[in-house]
């Protein structure tokens, strides 16, 4: 059976890929002719959650809550449990996720395998730091409970390990306490990139959550114009705080019902969106109390919003560049992307120096920028290659969870512990991304030749309308 599973960016599209739902921890892994790869909710954008010619071990059926200690805030659950399910369980009892990505529809296994980060990286570091233990099932049938004390090497290889070290069955996650489900937030307008650095420096000491949205069209002196969001969980007493009823909660029945035709996202509509977004949110300047849901998960309000990019899908590009080179590198990255059909969402945030146990973890001290681009074939791939090059020259790194175009050579440079990691890859596991990054002939090829180096001999070109 071929599976319908695609990644969130819906590029590259895979055609020959089977799916095997994992239902019980007691099961052994299926015997399959192609390689295996765990798959959560497919919220990775590129090809790291895809396995052309192989089998996806789908985990949303491995979704039991195994225990929650309300006193210590440690929750144990199977790896397919979503952050959404966890929040519903723990928030009413006074706890919250220690680190959360911008969507609640990811699994715990996926959050570990990509060692995800959130708006509090400068304080808290990555998700992997809060994973106390987990159990790893390998294709040879062996099972290991991994933690900083037991099988430490497997623990470190698997956090950020891109699903390649085996299947995570369950995990213990340490939560953080909250008084109530509200966040006290503030929106600060940014005139340009310099303002971002200034506001970041002044905000980070007293704000747990920080992130900036940039207008993808602003250029020249205005380059980097945007809005800076900062916030903290609300104190125990809400009296006197600017709470509005509309912030209490919201129904999210909205969904994009079908693929919008590709032309609906042109320069003009994106320009209009960015302009409108800037104006509307500028009005919300100042402090206010907000329910955690719209604060952390604004995009979850519209289900399947990835369809606005049409059938050809889109690319997200996220990189981090060290503080020393950040100003110049970001300027160049933003200028180059503004020349393309401008990115719908430009997100900028600083990463702190709290390190992760994961060998292949992406976050590192510096500034991270995320951009997305509608897929316009070779042209977009060329742009990604340029952004990849600028990142490399700045001494930064690209996030595999968002990648469909970095070069294999750059991947090796971004992740210096790659050679240490390789022996931990399960011999029966692989992914489209992994083959693209490691097959011998891929090293020399540019992203434009994507796929020609994959072991299977099947790849992207057929899907790229050149």
């Amino acid at each position, binding site marked *: *059976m071929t599976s319908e599973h695609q990644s969130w960016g819906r590029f590259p599209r895979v055609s020959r890929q089977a799916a095997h739902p994992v239902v019980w921890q*007691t099961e052994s892994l299926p015997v399959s002719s192609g390689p295996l790869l765990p798959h959560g909710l497919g919220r990775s954008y590129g090809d790291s959650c895809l396995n052309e010619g192989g089998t996806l071990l789908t985990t949303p059926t491995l979704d039991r809550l195994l225990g929650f200690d309300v006193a210590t805030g440690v929750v144990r659950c199977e790896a397919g449990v979503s952050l959404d399910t966890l929040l519903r369980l723990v928030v009413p009892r006074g706890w919250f996720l220690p680190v959360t990505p911008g969507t609640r529809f990811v699994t715990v296994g996926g959050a570990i395998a990509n060692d995800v980060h959130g708006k509090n990286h400068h304080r808290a570091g990555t998700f992997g730091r809060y994973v106390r233990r987990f159990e790893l099932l390998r294709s040879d049938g062996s099972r290991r409970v991994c933690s900083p004390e037991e099988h430490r090497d497997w623990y470190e290889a698997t956090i950020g390990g891109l699903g390649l070290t085996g299947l995570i069955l369950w995990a213990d996650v340490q939560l953080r306490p909250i008084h109530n489900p509200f966040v006290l937030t503030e929106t600060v307008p940014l005139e340009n990139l310099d303002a971002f650095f200034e506001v970041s420096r002044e905000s980070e000491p007293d704000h747990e959550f920080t992130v900036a949205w940039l207008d993808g069209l602003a250029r020249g002196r205005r380059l980097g114009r945007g809005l800076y969001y900062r916030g903290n969980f609300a104190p125990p007493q809400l009296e006197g705080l600017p709470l509005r009823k509309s912030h209490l909660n919201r129904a999210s029945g909205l969904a994009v019902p079908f693929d919008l035709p590709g032309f609906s996202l042109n320069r003009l509509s994106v320009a209009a969106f960015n302009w409108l977004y800037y104006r509307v949110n500028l009005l919300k300047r100042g402090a206010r109390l907000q329910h955690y849901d719209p604060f952390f998960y604004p995009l979850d309000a519209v289900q399947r919003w990835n369809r606005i990019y049409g059938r050809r899908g889109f690319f997200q590009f996220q990189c981090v560049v060290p503080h020393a080179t950040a100003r110049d590198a970001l300027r160049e990255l933003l200028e180059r992307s503004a020349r393309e059909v401008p990115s719908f969402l430009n997100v900028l945030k600083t990463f702190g120096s709290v390190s992760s146990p994961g060998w292949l973890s992406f976050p590192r001290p510096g500034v991270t920028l995320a951009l997305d681009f509608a897929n316009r074939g070779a042209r977009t791939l060329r742009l990604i290659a340029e952004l990849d090059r600028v990142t490399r020259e700045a001494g930064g790194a690209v996030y595999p969870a968002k990648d469909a175009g970095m070069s294999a050579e750059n991947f090796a440079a971004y992740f210096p512990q790659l050679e240490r990691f390789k022996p931990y890859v399960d011999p029966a596991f692989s992914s489209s991304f992994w083959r693209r990054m490691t097959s011998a002939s891929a090293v020399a090829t540019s992203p434009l030749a994507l796929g020609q180096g994959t072991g299977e001999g099947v790849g992207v070109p057929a899907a790229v309308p050149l």
Partner: protein
Amino acid sequence: MKKVLVLGATSAIAQATVRLLAARGAALYLVGRNAANLDVVAKDAATRGASKVEQQALDLDDFSAHEALVERAAQALGGLDGALIAHGVLGEQKACERSWTETEKVLRTNFLSAASLLTALANRFEAQKAGTLVVISSVAGDRGRQSNYVYGASKGALNVFLQGLRNRLARSGVAVVTVKPGFVDTPMTAHVPKNKLFASPEQVARGILRAADGRKNEVYVPARWALIMFIIRSIPEGIFKKMKL
């Protein structure tokens, strides 16, 4: 239903129903064949808010254990006011056609074991003059079709048994609810290409609890199956027997 015995608790539909019951704070006695799998379902129920969870691994094809099982569940929960019979096998029609042993297995698990359990449960509920018996049957029991008549027959027999039981228990205030799901997207149907007729186990679970709360007699979940099965039942046998359904 506050104190509920769940038979076949590791099936996808039962698990989804158990979660809803747990969220309401029900006390649960869970029975399934595989002890390790049953254990994670029990932990899940406890974590989601069940006021009490007890479990017992048991092969329900062993009819001689049924009386004692019901007794033990009632003791563990301090009484019983609900039971959900959710265990069953799909069987394989072609294998059943070739072998009586295979056919008998399907009839034993789906009909005989349910009838045996219902005998023990009905007597207890009748004596206490209260309670709700919920049994998961199938639309397949509405009409025999060449593609799965052995499974269909096991469910058809179950439906008639439940009708009679409902009739008998009506005067003692015990509800007997027959639930007829259509296609459900479970791991067991993973190999079947999905279409719009497939419902999720969660959807079916909500339908089951709605029917149980409303003390309904027979319900189709999702409800559209009532119409589909009405049409299928209405086709004259002379025509039906030539159809490939």
